[in-house]
């Protein structure tokens, strides 16, 4: 019989109290247990970065972390970026700078860049490239993504 564990956590500002299996990953918990399917799984071994979420403000791989490890944590997923039905500046910039094609890597890219722009409000191009070097995009050649991040940094400065 599988042992269940109780966890309480905040996801995108909402409180959850759930029973989870010990081996359940955070990504599967988000996707299947609370139906936040914006967090994507591309490799399930921590390389592609599509499942990146913020755990207490820091990026984490949803596929490499267990749901039980997120007990009492505050999680932000791509669904939590838009505020009051309005896209945030980074989401807007992704649309304007053609930072996505198929869109599958996009949630992970957005979360990684959210952290970068918090920690380093004035990144250089190379800083952006280094920051997203743990997120694979096969469509864009990264150009639009880098451009979007730099544009947001500049905008926030004004």
């Amino acid at each position: 019989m599988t042992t269940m564990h109780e966890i309480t956590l905040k996801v995108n500002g909402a409180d959850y109290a759930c029973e989870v299996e010990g081996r359940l990953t955070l990504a599967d918990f988000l996707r299947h247990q609370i139906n936040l399917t914006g967090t994507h799984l591309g490799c399930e071994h921590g390389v592609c970065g599509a499942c990146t979420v913020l755990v207490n403000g820091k990026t984490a791989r949803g596929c490499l972390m267990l749901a039980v490890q997120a007990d009492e944590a505050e999680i932000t997923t791509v669904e939590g970026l838009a505020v009051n039905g309005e896209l945030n500046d980074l989401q807007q910039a992704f649309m304007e700078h053609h930072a996505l094609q198929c869109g599958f890597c996009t949630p992970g890219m957005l979360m990684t860049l959210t952290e970068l722009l918090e920690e380093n409000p004035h990144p250089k191009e190379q800083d952006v490239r280094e920051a997203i070097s743990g997120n694979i995009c096969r469509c864009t050649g990264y150009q639009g993504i880098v451009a979007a991040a730099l544009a947001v940094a500049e905008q926030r400065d004004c």
Partner: protein
Amino acid sequence: MSDNQKSGVVGGNYRWVGNNTRRPDGVDKVTGRARYGDDMVLPGMLHMRMLRSPHAHARILSIDTSDAEAMKGVKAVVTHKDVPDHPPAKPPFGPAVSDFHDLSRNIMAREKVLYDGHAVAAVAATTESIAKRAVRKIKVEYEILPHVLDPYEAAQAGAPILHEHQFTLGLEPKPKEPSNLFRTLGGEQGNLEQGFENSDLVIEREFSSQPVHQGYIEPLACVASSSEDGAVELWTSTQGHFVARTLLSRLLNLDMSKFRVTASEIGGGFGGKTTIYHEPAAILLSMKTGRPVRSVMTRGEVLRATGPTVGSVCRIKIGAKKDGTLVAADAEIWYQAGAFKGGPVARATDSFFSPYKIPNARTACHDVCVNRPKAAAYRAPGAPMATWAAEAVINELATEFGLDPVEMRLKNAVKEGDTSLMGTKHGRIGCIEVLEAAKNHPHYNAPLKKNQGRGFALGYWLHGGGLSSASANLLDDGTLTLALGTPDIGGSRSSMRAMAAEELGIDIELVKPAVVDTASLGYNHLTAGSRTTYATGMAVVNATREIIEKLCSLAAFKWEISVEEVRWDSGEALPADKYAGKLKPFSLKQLAKMAPGTVGPIAGHSEINAKGAGASFCAQISDIEIDPETGGTSPVRHTVILDAGRAISPDYVEGQMQGGAVQGIGWALNEEYIYDDNGRLLNTGFLDYRMPVASDVPMIDTLIVEVPNPKHPYGVRGVGEPPLVPAPAAVAIAVENAIGRRMGDLPMSPPKVLAAMDAQKLAAE
């Protein structure tokens, strides 16, 4: 931020076409709302897992599924016994091979397993973890057979044979022994021997490359649901749900009309999602259990069991005059089709020499079965490796003659009226315009630093047209829905919407495009071959023009004049001729409101077989810096120049150019399939199958050349595939130029580069 530019023969003044517009799929994709293959959940859904072969080549002696079936939570198991068998297809074969004997065995091994990862059985259970455990309880007895991975070795006599019923096509008399060589395609013109004799210099080289995967980030995922009346609903991540319907219906012997296939939002494909893999097993399990069945592949399964592009072995010989005139060219390439025939040999024959007029030329392209997953299309299938060989040798000839490589190409460039070796007679094409643009680009003559080399390559791609359908519905409030049947993989919803809004003369935001299911629209071929904006775009233009005709009729009816006396301009019906200026125009919005009370609903639709897609050309300039200590390679500058015909949505076109270039960088420098001595794939994850990340690549400069295609209402040529065609070539040539030595084997990974540099030092000493 775009410092990208456009040049060429641009014409036409449009409001939406040729301008960047707000993307129609953007909000869903930046909020996590877009629904991909793995995001579909149905009530009572079961989870499928597959048992896959651990052997490269083995006879299946027995499969015992009883222990798995006895597990609590397991609802059904399927093996080849549940898959209808089909006889081998008979010749003649077209450029693309369709054989249900092969397909039925590729989706589920029957007599033998033919590659590591080959599907052997599938389990449906109430949870994924039960399904995983059940798979391990299936007992399979194998008799291991010798295997072969290299296409050249596999084509020789005495190689382990994959298919005892396969005899090389086209040989007289019919061979007595079966062969892994399925067929050889090629073309010949002029007199090769004489051509080489008349050349001032002949250069001969050999090249080889490893298979590389399309590397889409979304693993394959589907949900199948069949009902008691034989109907099948399928949700799947695919580049062609209509094609999936055809394949499934024929494979499973079910009426086509019983299927309703819906394409999920697709997380990349690049050709890799143009066929079916796990869908038949999911459908069969759903039929057995009466419940929906979901299958999501792991990344390891995607790499082991879905088609990468072909690896290759190539020999090439080109002769030219001192002034740069190409006189004779001969190329032979062996392509790894994988476990079943059907490598992209027809495309290779078309790719070697098509940018040039060469009076004496021959190509031979061998389609060879080996113990690897069956190759699938990958962005310009068959073209990049053939292009690499030809372009590398042409550059060497230019160097030997002291000629500028672009000037030498211009001297031989194809133009309107020329015919390719494979018989394509060119209409208006932009080979010369692309070369001129490359020559004039600041990158072309920019100085290089120490340890850097530059590569230049030109690529050719003959675009697809084919079957497309579209329907447009005008709604009472003056907005328009567009129903499309080609999955949107690179931005087709945006370009379709731009063309529809342009035709109607209305605000682009009033048009809402959607990819609809197979029950809702006429047939559509794949989103592949760079055909969608061209062919589906034509269908959309036709459908909207039908709406305009109907709106003009409605206005004529209201004005009580003849429809010939009404014209459409900028979103309005205007009285023409003798009534011009005498009646108040009706806007589209007014007419849409009138329609329900008068003529009824207004819609347009179009079903076409689009011809005349034509060729386009792409040139790339790549600068690579070598680390002399490690053999590491860094792309430091890269420029892509492409004839788009007309860029409907320039930002999407630039995205295609940049994405294709980066895939080419990966192909040339890092990516490869690595097998152990037993034919097992070793690098089954993204950690070891290393694709370029942002810090590996520079900004990719783009230059869109526009030589409109006269066969398309807006001049479109496809843009998906050409950016990959010359990319590996430009990068590989840059590496060779940086170290001053030929390598000829992809990927040019650090150990190989280091070895080549050591050899170069030795040679110098």
